[in-house]
């Protein structure tokens, strides 16, 4: 397992410097460890960064993922890019509101984003502006809340849809005694 600082991280530092000089202070770049750089960017800067990185030789669109930070009311979109020459993954992360906010599509920069965006759209309900076909991808005839959202309760859904009883109940729990004795504080 590679750990921070085991080897010199020339490439990583160079890319960090380049991104910082090109995009200014709004973009925060952290070197997480060797081969991994995380870039926190505001929404409007995300696509320019992707375009810039593509031009820098980050050919591989490894992954587009979405994290539902329900407490903050945000979706975090993480674009994971890789360059063979630098041997570095850059994870460009941006936050959008959970409701009523869309993200411009990246398919004009990376073709590979096509299916990833479809998946994220289906699983989280994130809208990608300008995507030609955000339709059914993995699910068929799905109605209701996108399943990967944190507030989608799959067990309750299963109970209802498949007519299965008592899934939400844990099968073995200690019987809680509701009354806490006279020592109760309130």
């Amino acid at each position, binding site marked *: 397992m590679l750990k921070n600082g085991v080897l010199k991280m020339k490439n990583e530092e160079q890319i960090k410097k380049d991104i910082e000089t090109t995009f200014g202070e709004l973009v925060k770049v952290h070197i997480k460890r060797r081969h991994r750089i995380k870039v926190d960017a505001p929404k409007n800067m995300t696509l320019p960064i992707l375009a810039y990185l593509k031009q820098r030789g980050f050919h591989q669109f490894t992954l587009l993922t979405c994290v539902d930070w329900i407490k903050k009311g945000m979706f975090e979109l993480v674009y994971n890019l890789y360059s063979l020459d630098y041997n570095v993954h850059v994870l460009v992360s941006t936050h959008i509101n959970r409701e009523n906010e869309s993200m411009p599509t990246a398919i004009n920069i990376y073709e590979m984003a096509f299916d990833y965006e479809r998946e994220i759209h289906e699983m989280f309900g994130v809208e990608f502006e300008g995507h030609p076909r955000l339709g059914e991808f993995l699910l068929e005839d799905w109605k209701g809340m996108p399943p990967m959202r944190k507030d989608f309760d799959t067990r309750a859904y299963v109970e209802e849809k*498949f007519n299965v009883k008592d899934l939400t109940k844990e099968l073995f729990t200690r019987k809680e005694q509701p009354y806490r004795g006279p020592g109760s504080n309130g």
Partner: protein
Amino acid sequence: MKLFNFSQSRSLWMMHFCTGCGAMEMPPTMTSRFDMERFGIIPMATPRQSDLLLITGYLTIKTLKRVVRAYEQMPTPRYVLGFGSCTINGGMYWDSYNVIKKLELYIPVDIYINGCMPRPEAIIDAFLKLREMIAKGEANAWKKYIENYEWYKKNQSEVFDVEKWSIKNEK
């Protein structure tokens, strides 16, 4: 009839329809190490030619539609073998929003094997049991489907739109 039952029991053509994890133990069962063909069981490419439908593991709703359709295309008598825990009571995917839990609600099942996934030996034993049942004329789950057609359709309609996915002229 007896002769038919006998030949049916000795010649089970299974549909080459592998869904889910159980499909991974089918190749070893089919191929040289365990050699299922010794019992006259061979994979067939289309439902029309098959007698035996293997549900090798979980079924997503999307697959279930196709399975029901394929099942209805199979000529009777037809047999269904439920493979592994997932077909019995949901198995690993008991809380997955996209996987059906009890196969018997949607199509009748003749025999189940436990396991996640079952070993080839267990699969062969299940085939032999099925073979015995057919020879005795006991494997009659397919009749249930015709008799309780409405019930099965009702259950199916709970998970997907039956109208949209049914073949009109067939039962």
